[in-house]
């Protein structure tokens, strides 16, 4: 419901839904991320960071949570923390090793170093 309201440009209504979701289920990481994005849009970066730090602890493999946290750090001027989150995302996004080995052999090339 919160996402629908957000798409309808009703940020206040969306935030209320996300807050309700978090209060009902404090370990609902997706709701924490969604609420944090609303806070970021309102330039309340420290509130967003608090929510997102909770989210990444709950879901350490969530690219969405790490991405939002990286941007919140960046927007808050916490460059080193943003860089640290970027490194986490880079690691999460890395394609599987040897993905193209067979095709490159057909092309007569060696597989690139991953």
């Amino acid at each position, binding site marked *: 419901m919160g996402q629908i309201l957000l*798409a309808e440009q009703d940020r206040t209504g969306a935030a209320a839904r996300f807050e309700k979701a978090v209060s009902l289920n404090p370990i609902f990481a997706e709701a924490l991320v969604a609420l944090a994005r609303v806070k970021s849009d309102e330039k309340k970066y420290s509130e967003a960071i608090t929510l997102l730090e909770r989210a990444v602890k709950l879901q350490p493999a969530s*690219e*969405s949570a790490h991405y939002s946290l990286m941007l919140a750090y960046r*927007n808050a001027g916490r460059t080193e923390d943003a860089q640290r989150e970027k490194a986490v995302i880079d690691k999460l*996004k890395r*394609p599987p090793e040897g993905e193209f080995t067979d*095709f490159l052999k057909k092309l007569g090339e060696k597989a690139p170093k991953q």
Partner: protein
Amino acid sequence: MLLMLSGAPPHVRFENVAESAGLTRLFPNGGDKTKRFIIETTGSGVAFLDYDNDGLLDIFIVSGEGGLSRMYHNDGKGRFTDVTRKMGLGGASGWGQGVCAADYDNDGFTDLVVTYWGQNHLYRNVRGQSFEEVTERAGLKQDRVRYNTGCAFLDYDNDGHADLFVANYLKFDPAAAPKPGENPYCWYRGLAVNCGPRGLPFDRNILYHNNGDGTFSDVSQASGISAPDQNYSLGVLTGDFNNDGLTDIYVACDQTPSLLYINQGNGKFTEEALLRGVAFDENGKAMSGMGVTAADYDGDGRLDIFRSNFSDERETLYRNRGGGEFDDATIAAGISRNTRFVGWGCGFFDFDNDGWKDVLLVNGHVFPEVERLGIDIHYKDRAILYRNLGNGKFADISENAGPGLIERHSARGAAFGDYDNDGLIEVLINNQNETPSLLKQPARPANHWILVKLTGTQSNRSALGAKVKLTAGGRTQVDEVRSGGSYLSQNDLRLHFGLGAAQRVDRIEIQWPSGASQILRDVLAGRVVEIEEPRKPLARD
């Protein structure tokens, strides 16, 4: 002003005038019922350029395998004549992809690069009388078959010579590529389809430095351009996104993070898309980026970025928050609802001359087989036109903008330019296996306009990277001269500004790549104003 902000569309009617303009040839591009290989899906681009300096934009259309890429001369009065062979451009065939234009040798005539799966071609414009194929002589011959896609000239080191960036999609050989259905990357919604890009090996992008003597040197490695090695690169956009006086490069990438090469000013670039917020969508997910365009859509003096993506994805609008850092403004701007289209060529342009840049994108799925599903996703589809409401939001007026907008094609490249100098921008579109579209508004809105044509003297002759800040009627607009852009295409090198009710421009300030600054005052609107860079630096205002 009230009318402008109400969201009510003005009287707008785009018609496809390609046939009456003489653009009656079909441009082949792979299968129409089924496509066996990915190479059939990605082509091709189009260009508006004035190759003979007669003040009228000519047309170049890139063909896939089985046809010729063609040059059409603008004869005036809305007619174009095929001059491909007469101009010496009839010698190349194959899987043509992209096109970009600029005067790389500073001789006063606009040259042309056409990219291919295979060898690219550099065509030197010989005094507007013919084109000479100089790829090998210029040092641009490649040592292997590459899947070259988007390209753009830019003067990244501000030395007065236009350099060349070429995006590379992936490594592909039809003899080695898997066939439809052969592996998990060769399926779409239960249909066996051509494979990729996932499952096919990445390739690296290329930067050629212009040596100033008619030759180029490959500086991809030394510049850092070739460092990213996990991206499927397509559309190319240049611009000074962090406003440091140096041209940066943005690349829309398919199913992988898009790239933003930030120019460090010492011949090197660093790839910073992720931290600057333009690699992914707002959820941190890589989109299937195709085309890309830039403009200051919200009037804050900064270049924003729009990227077209695949179906089941939103288009992406990145708002520049300053310093070259971006926020995803797609939802906030009201353009998040069209998720059934595969978007390609796109452009910011002010179709109603109200002073706010609107957005048009053209569409068409990569899999003709999708028609078998009977769903609302189509191989041939209509275009989308978003009207800028002047308050940070857009309204989708596609279905009320004339018959040209709702024609269904499998469109790819799109170029934007004013070919009849009437102050309204036309749109040239490459449709797979069909004749091109040429979208034009027959009726002129009441608003005023100006076209700015810049010529560099100390800077590169095409004025690539020159910035214009224009003030009229109490509003200030900015733009930059750029080569390439959209999807594998080339727009008019002149800059177009809608002026609303203003009949005169109060001030035009130009920042030239050389560092020179120039100011013009009280300029009459409704015309093309030609501005040459001062040969000696002028005093500032």
